[in-house]
């Protein structure tokens, strides 16, 4: 998967330089002076990768909801706040739901009065930060609605992070509030 642009509201903070405490590979790298330079470089790259890939279950999802789709329309959007209380960034690499054929992160932008949507292959929630999906801004576009859902019903979403258990969330269905905005 190609690396996408990092959403501007979740830009990474300065690196803490920490390594994962359960990383046996990293321990070996610091205790074996006989390793070749190439080998050390490879381990450094792995360490960098490990520092940006964490388990989805470490995320907290708040204020989530799915916009109730109008009758006959199989497209809608989900909104929520993802909070990362940990010390490492977490990338959301995909979302699935039995209720929809496809789920994709998009960013709505308005330039010169014209609305457009940009697809984001993945999103990053930086350590100690939030990712906010709200009407008129970042959102999870849901297409290919299966069945019908009324206000008050819940739709289960699975947020994947590339490794580790997915984050399961049940989001209630409701319409937009008239003054709801980002």
């Amino acid at each position, binding site marked *: 998967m190609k690396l996408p642009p990092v959403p501007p509201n979740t830009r990474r903070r300065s690196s803490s330089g920490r390594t994962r405490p359960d990383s046996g590979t990293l321990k070996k790298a610091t205790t074996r002076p006989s390793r070749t330079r190439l080998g050390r470089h490879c381990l450094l790259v792995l360490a960098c990768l490990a520092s940006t890939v964490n388990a989805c279950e470490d995320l907290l999802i708040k204020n989530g909801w799915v916009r109730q789709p109008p009758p006959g329309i199989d497209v809608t959007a989900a909104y929520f706040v993802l909070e990362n209380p940990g010390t490492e960034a977490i990338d959301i690499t995909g979302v699935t739901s039995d209720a929809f054929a496809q789920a994709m992160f998009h960013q709505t932008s308005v330039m010169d009065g*014209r609305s457009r949507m940009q697809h984001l292959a993945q999103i990053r929630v930086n350590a100690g930060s939030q990712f906010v999906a709200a009407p008129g801004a970042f959102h999870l576009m849901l297409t290919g609605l299966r069945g019908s859902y009324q206000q008050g019903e819940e739709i289960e979403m699975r947020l994947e992070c590339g490794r580790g258990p997915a984050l399961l969330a049940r989001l209630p269905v409701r319409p937009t509030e*008239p003054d709801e905005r980002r």
Partner: protein
Amino acid sequence: MALSSRTGLVILPLVVVVAAFFAGVGVSRYNQSDQAPVEGLLWPDPLVLKDFALTDHTGDKLSPARLRGRWSLIFFGFTHCPDVCPTALEAMSAAQQSLRQDPQFGQTGQTIFISVDPERDSTETLANYVGYFSPEMLGATAPVDELKALTSSLGVLFMKIPGEGTQYTVDHSAGVFFISPDLQLLSVLTPPITKTGLLERFETVSRFYSTHL
């Protein structure tokens, strides 16, 4: 339907008549008589609707005659729009309920959703869609060539953007257009579209209209 070419990335040729829109949206203008700034007012020299012929969600013709003599709040979008369009239409529906108490908007004022995606938005689709937001909201569309007669007179832009397979989306002007009873475009409220924002803008624009026109 005129949305026929799958080979062209730009299916809907765009009208670039934007003088008042891009120059004036959200910018305070000065009234010539008293030099007082009027927020969001496209004045002087507002764009004026030219002749057009759309079909509304009941199958009836929608022409300038149905806009003359009443206030109209118009939003251009498409039913497969997941974010901006339903957000704006929820706000318009709520605003319309409040505006019924306004002496200028009254019982004759109207909110209109115009689809710039006639390929997918049939009369039946539009009827279900606008009916979901408000039983009083009008939905309308037309073949692209007919749509352009209206959009060109308002500086509205729309462009079909291909997606995966046969999927596509549509970039489009995302404001709410305030059309006076004299068919003048007096203001465009740009996103975020909220009920409060719509009511405030209508109060400003209608007050100017009633005292100066």
